[in-house]
């Protein structure tokens, strides 16, 4: 199929090229000669003198000698001669019957001096460049210039908070961690919500096979844009409404990010060097208990459960007996575990690029090196990236481009993702290094196989430690390394079938992405006995992805005689073929911690160890027809139709059609608006409607696949049906509607975009929808309903002051979004959360109501004494039982029937029945922000000094402070924050923190105690940049030199008491509650940068 397309296109080209040749006219060979001088009458040496035909193809060329003389034999008198030299304006003259050409050429500076540049901004949806003023759809654009000061390893980090309706949040602060990009909220309940990334006109793969173990919680996080160096980027355009994304088909349903990299321009070679260096520091975290305070808390907590004291004779962790030096020294410390795994991070990023070119060939080449060291010990990232973009103009009918990029990343991560969390919870009286039985410190990590706090019991499927470990041993000795090599050659050939009217473009892009993942868990990191399979566990995994995409476009732009009409039409075919092959080997118990590869003799037979190989292939086909018609520059309409076929659907639902229509009405172009012309540049209204389809995430789901159990029974293999055959899975269709307004005033000084949108997702995918278990399966992928995702966004760019040397720019964006379920499958649960269990909130999914509201109890403090626990009726008088006895407050009678004790948390008895149960649950808040956005200003003085500041904000949303919950619940052996020093301890204590209660009680039910308004305003970044004045630069024989300083995350204004109010609600679960589990505020960063070009 691919080959077919390739062949056919080549055939077309050969056919027409041949045709051209046949049309060439009769030749008459003559010789012409002449002299080239500059405006000062001095001869110019080295000027290229070429005979070119009508299509600008070079027939023959010579160069001028020292005296500026040349002679050239001419093939055809109808051709022209061109005289070109770098830095000098090109001269073209028809040959005709002239035999002598004495040419005077002017240097380019002289030319440019008197020219006023009139240009129009063009925006590329990746397929067709359209003048920005004629756009019928909603887009947001940002040029890399605006981002270059940010110390971001990848561009998604740099885009954070800059564009209205584009929400980008970090998955974690560690090097190599990815970002989550959401354009206009989430359109899908739990399928992939990541936008399609298009680089230089071709889709860029950001996903890796979902079942490959990357040793990371969020494989999407890994498959980031790390492989594109931010310095190579020219501009980024984000397509937001469905009419804009519809042409990209199935993978574009969540928006499209179009990235264009830099290309060569006609100039002398320019070499640029950019340096960015920064240091990062973990800010002060929440204060945790010291070892001494902890050792007081735990026995008390245990005692409170049922009056049985913790036996410190056998539980020696709390014995504190100097006569038993081994236990005494190892468990009498005040260790700050978090500090022990924290370091100062740094980043340095070097990029060198060369660009230039002549009339026919242009180039851009770059080489970058990034080194990043994380703030957690053992995390770092190295990246080498290179890119070569070549343009060759064969004739004015044929052009080709070759883009080649290669990147190599080497990322060391923590062995488990929750290491920092483990460190927070780790018992502080334990020692980092082991003391021997005489009380002398040894250099060995103190990693007991288990102690009262528990033991290491494995890594869960989210790559988190189950149980506990010595965090320092884990950070320093656990190895996890991901190495990626990615080569992306992209070839593009453009041929004008009818000059400037009918153009065909053929693109083919190969993407070879090889990833190697190695990890090793030595015995000392966990302390587990050597008989267990988590000891010396070696892992090695490889995934090789080979991806071929082609795009064949026919673009028709007739030059209509009647200038009132404007027409452009295109027909584009896409093919996509992605194949991934992975292999993983996991073994354990190698003979030594130094033998870290699974290939060394080690244990393999247990079911938790594995030798796995997988292979997946996905294919899709697409065709897009789209036409844009404009009348009088006022009425513009764009109509499109996209057809898609995808291999992930069963035969019944494989193909689908998605139409789109969008229009723009330029009110300012109407004659009656002439009166405002002085100050109104543009006033337009945009309306659009579009559909696009989403394909499911997994391959082959319409087959029931029989798998093997990982173990045998009585030595024989067992086979089982591993999934349901999905006969009914259909395309998830997003129907987008957008109403937009563009206002440009005062010669571009004020630029306002307002958009109102509604995206309706029909046949919502839901992966692993829990189904009744009598079917034998856990879940099924299903189309479960209809969801609306609606909101508005405003973007404002202004230049309020511009006079003399001073210029002030100000921009502002604000957006609002909400998700509403309109229809839902009967299999879909309607509520979640068990209100009678600690730490959970109740959420409901109500049709026609926005998501995000959560419910729970109202917290009133702590019962200070026995009297306070008396049940009281509405009047405040105690309730008397049927036998006249006193009744005390109960929890969840009759199912649980716990009687509240003094020191327990007090919840409001809403219905005054003396029983705290589901009837006392009230509305507590909503986790969706009312507004999100950002604003920034920049001040420029004489083009040399520039100060920019950027802020982002979210307003009015409620967050569950999960950190507070986890650090004050006093429910287990985990370390707690110093707030628990205020806890209730004896009858009569009046406080807001209940008594410590080991693994029992109801002291941390989901209540408003943990709910806070997390509205914030963050001073995201500030940059001072100084560019050396032209004269000084010239003196240094340089083209450009500038330096800057950026500070990030300077300050956050918020009433929120937790660490970081910017909580990203992961996934799109309608039952999601925004929970903040962060233990530290966002990392502060100082960056120094330098750019020099020669």
């Amino acid at each position, binding site marked *: 199929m691919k080959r077919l397309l390739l062949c056919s296109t080549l055939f077309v080209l050969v056919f027409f090229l041949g045709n051209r040749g046949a049309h060439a006219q009769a030749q008459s060979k003559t010789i012409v000669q002449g002299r080239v001088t500059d405006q000062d009458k001095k001869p110019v040496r080295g000027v290229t003198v070429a005979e070119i035909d009508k299509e600008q193809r070079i027939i023959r060329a010579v160069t001028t000698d020292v005296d500026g003389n040349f002679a050239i034999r001419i093939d055809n008198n109808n051709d022209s001669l061109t005289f070109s030299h770098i830095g000098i304006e090109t001269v073209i003259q028809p040959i005709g019957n002239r035999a002598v050409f004495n040419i005077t050429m002017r240097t380019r500076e002289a030319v440019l001096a008197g020219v006023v540049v009139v240009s129009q901004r063009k925006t590329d949806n990746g397929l067709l460049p359209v003048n920005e003023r004629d756009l019928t759809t909603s887009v947001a654009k940002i040029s890399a210039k605006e981002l270059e000061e940010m110390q971001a390893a990848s561009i998604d980090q740099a885009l954070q908070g800059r564009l209205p309706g584009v929400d980008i949040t970090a998955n974690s602060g560690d090097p190599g961690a990815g970002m989550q990009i959401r354009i206009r909220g989430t359109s899908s309940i739990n399928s992939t919500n990541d936008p399609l990334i298009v680089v230089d006109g071709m889709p860029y793969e950001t996903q890796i096979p979902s079942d490959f173990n990357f040793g990371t919680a969020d494989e999407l996080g890994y498959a980031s844009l790390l492989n594109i160096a931010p310095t190579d980027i020219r501009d980024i355009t984000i397509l937001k409404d469905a009419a804009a994304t519809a042409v990209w088909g199935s993978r574009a349903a969540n928006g499209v990010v179009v990235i264009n990299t830099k290309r060569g321009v006609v100039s002398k070679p320019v070499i640029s060097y950019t340096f960015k260096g920064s240091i990062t520091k973990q800010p002060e975290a929440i204060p945790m208990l010291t070892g001494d305070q902890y050792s007081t808390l735990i026995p008390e907590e245990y005692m409170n459960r049922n009056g049985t004291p913790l036996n410190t004779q056998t539980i020696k962790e709390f014995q504190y007996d100097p006569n038993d030096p081994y236990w005494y020294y190892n468990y009498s410390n005040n260790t700050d575990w978090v500090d022990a795994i924290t370091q100062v991070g740094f980043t340095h990023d070097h990029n060198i690029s060369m660009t230039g070119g002549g009339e026919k060939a242009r180039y851009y080449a770059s080489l970058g090196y990034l080194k990043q060291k994380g703030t957690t010990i053992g995390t770092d990232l190295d990246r080498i990236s290179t890119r070569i973009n070549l343009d060759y103009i064969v004739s004015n009918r044929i052009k080709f481009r070759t883009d080649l990029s290669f990147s190599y990343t080497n990322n060391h991560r923590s062995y488990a993702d929750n290491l920092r969390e483990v460190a927070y919870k780790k018992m502080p009286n334990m020692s980092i290094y082991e003391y021997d039985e005489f009380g002398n410190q040894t250099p060995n990590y103190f990693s007991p196989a288990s102690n009262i706090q528990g033991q290491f019991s494995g890594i869960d499927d989210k790559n988190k430690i189950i149980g506990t470990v010595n965090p320092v041993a884990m950070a320093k000795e656990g190895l996890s390394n991901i190495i990626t090599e990615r080569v992306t050659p992209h070839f593009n050939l453009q041929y004008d079938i009818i000059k400037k009217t009918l153009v065909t473009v053929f693109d083919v892009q190969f993407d070879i992405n090889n990833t190697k993942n190695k990890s090793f868990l030595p015995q000392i990191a966990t302390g587990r006995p050597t008989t267990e399979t988590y000891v010396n566990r070696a892992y090695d995994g490889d995934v090789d992805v080979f991806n071929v995409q082609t795009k064949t476009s026919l673009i028709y732009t007739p030059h209509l005689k009647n200038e009132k009409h404007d027409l452009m039409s295109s027909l584009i075919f896409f093919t996509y073929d992605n194949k991934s092959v992975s292999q993983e080997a996991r073994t354990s118990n190698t003979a030594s911690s130094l033998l870290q590869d699974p290939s060394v003799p080690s244990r393999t037979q247990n079911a938790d160890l594995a030798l796995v190989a997988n292979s997946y292939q996905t294919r899709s086909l697409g065709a897009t027809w789209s036409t844009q018609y404009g009348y009088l520059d006022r009425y513009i309409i764009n109509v499109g139709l996209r057809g898609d076929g995808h291999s992930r659907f069963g035969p019944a639902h494989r193909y689908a059609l998605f139409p789109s229509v969008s229009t723009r009405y330029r009110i300012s172009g109407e004659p009656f608006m002439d009166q405002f012309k002085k100050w109104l540049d543009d006033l337009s209204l945009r309306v659009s409607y579009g559909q696009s389809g989403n394909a499911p995430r997994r391959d082959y789901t319409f087959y029931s696949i029989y798998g093997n159990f990982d173990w045998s029974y009585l030595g024989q293999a067992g*086979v089982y049906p591993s999934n349901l055959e999905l006969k009914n899975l259909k395309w998830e269709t997003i129907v987008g509607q957008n109403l937009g307004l563009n206002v440009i005033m005062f010669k571009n000084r004020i630029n306002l975009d307002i958009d109102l949108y509604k995206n309706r997702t029909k046949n919502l995918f839901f992966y692993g929808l829990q189904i009744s278990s009598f079917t*034998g399966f*856990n879940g099924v992928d299903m189309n479960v309903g209809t969801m609306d995702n609606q909101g508005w966004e405003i973007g404002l760019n202004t230049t309020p002051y511009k006079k003399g040397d001073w210029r002030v720019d100000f921009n502002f964006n604000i957006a609002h979004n909400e998700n509403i379920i309109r229809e839902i499958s009967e299999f879909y649960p309607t509520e979640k959360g068990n209100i009678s*269990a600690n730490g959970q909130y109740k959420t409901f999914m109500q049709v026609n109501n926005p998501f995000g509201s959560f419910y729970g109890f109202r917290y009133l403090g702590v019962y200070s004494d026995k009297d306070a626990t008396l049940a009281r009726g509405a009047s405040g008088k105690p309730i008397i039982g049927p036998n006249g006895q006193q009744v005390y407050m109960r929890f969840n009678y009759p199912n649980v029937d716990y009687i509240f004790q003094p020191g327990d948390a007090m919840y409001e008895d809403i219905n005054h029945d003396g029983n705290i149960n589901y009837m006392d649950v009230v509305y507590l808040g909503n986790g969706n922000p009312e507004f999100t956005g950002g604003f920034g200003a920049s001040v420029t003085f004489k083009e040399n000094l520039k100060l920019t500041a950027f802020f982002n904000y979210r307003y009015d949303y409620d967050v569950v402070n999960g950190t507070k919950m986890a650090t004050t619940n006093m429910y287990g052996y985990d370390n707690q924050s110093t707030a628990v020093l205020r806890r209730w301890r004896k009858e009569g204590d009046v406080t807001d923190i209940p008594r410590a209660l080991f693994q029992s009680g109801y002291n941390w039910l989901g209540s408003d105690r943990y709910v806070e308004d997390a509205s914030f305003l963050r001073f995201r970044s500030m940059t001072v940049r100084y560019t050396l004045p032209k004269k000084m630069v010239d003196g240094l024989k340089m083209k450009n030199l500038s330096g800057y300083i950026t500070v990030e995350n300077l300050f956050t204004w918020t009433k929120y008491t937790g660490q970081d109010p910017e909580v990203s609600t992961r996934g799109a679960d309608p039952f999601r509650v925004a929970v903040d589990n962060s233990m530290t505020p966002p990392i502060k960063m100082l960056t120094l940068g330098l750019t020099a070009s020669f």
Partner: protein
Amino acid sequence: MKLQKNILLGFVWFCCAICFSSCKKYLELKPTDGIIRQNFWKTKEQVQAAVFGCYASLLGAPAGISDRPLSEYFFLWGELRADMLSPSFGITAPELDFMNVNILPTNNITNWRSVYRTINYCNTVIDYAPEVLSNDKTFTDEALAAYVAEATTLRALMYFYLVRTFRDVPLKLTSTSSDDQLEQLAKSTAAEVLDQIVTDLNDSEAALPLTYNDQAADKGRITRYTLNALQADVYLWMEKYPEAITACDKIINSGKFGLIPGSSTWFNTVFANGNSYESIFEFQFDRQKLNSFYTLFRTNPHFTASNIVYEDVFAADGQNDLKDLRFDGAAARANDGLIWKYIGIDNATLRAQGESFAHWFVYRYPDILLMKAEALAKTGKGQDALDIVYRIRSRASALPDTDRPGITANDTEGILDFILEERSREFAYEGKRWFDLLRHAKRDNYKRLDLLLTMVSKTVPPDRQQSAIAKFKDKNSHYLPIYQYEIQTDKNLEQNPFYK
């Protein structure tokens, strides 16, 4: 120029036509590393592999699904609410709630998912194995019938666990293999489920082989004796005593089973090694598939032996050197109360974690004997019943303190209580205690509800005692609630009234 344009357009359309006609094939991709259903069910080896898949699922959930293994559920369901465990420091909140008779529909131990998973595997074999007859000419009707009978009996065993634990449950007798077969099933009553079990067992009996000519396979796969053992158990539960006796006699008269004499190697032979002469059906954990009991009982013990085990069950007060063979170093380790049955390699030595593959014992020969004794006592053959009990006791050198010397052959209730006590010693921690207590309590229209009330008054902490006793007085509370997820995903399921 015009001509050129036409040629071009013609060519483009030609290309399109070719593209679209080849689309269909281009987009048809099949997995290269798994067998799809359409290609399975072709040979008798595949049928066998599918049957072994049913067995393999007894040991744990397949890859990608994190769940307790069935044996752990069976242990928790059979022991947590009874009186032989005491919470230890590794206990989790759901487990503790169970022990304190504070069971809610959100407690994840009430999740029956893994039982139905195995049921679906069995149903798949029952539904699709007959297809193979037409594809594989070497596959005989007898072989097919035997495989189907194995799957049916295993399914019956699963339903028997469900009906004893949840009472009314959805009865799913066909397989689910595609998303258009999804339905919302209502519960069937306990009587309907039990009737189905009886029918399945009666239908399968003739087809099952008596032996697979391999000691391990005879104990690890379902034979006709396994079916008889299950029949006896089901009939006892249904209070059909003569039928129970008949089923037990089929095993006893076969002469293939017996009691292994009590000696210092008894524990090692029966429990540590497994597949002994006195075993009938065991889940075959092995070195590559370990059981989950090591973490439950050893590394961070969730439970230890309760005081009742020391004082009442075995009366091991140690005034002389007499020892019940089944207690110290068998059921538990006396000095620290560790549950020893699954973590000891012999009377005194612990298994290493990597060696933790003790089998799960579903039926052993003493069970058959004591079941028969129970049925005999109920049918007026008290002396025969007592003889059996003393046979079991003498094998294990039971202590005199646990004897009931005053019991006469006519004292039916006394004999039944004695059998119940003997079962607690013989099958300590084999997941049978709660079901035994409940069977005795509910027989003859809950004549012996007092058994449960007395039991709970001893096990639950004082501050929860009254509420626990009050709960147990309601018969509905003896069965678990339906897990919350099931209620949410199946609108036709009705919660057990006690937990509404």
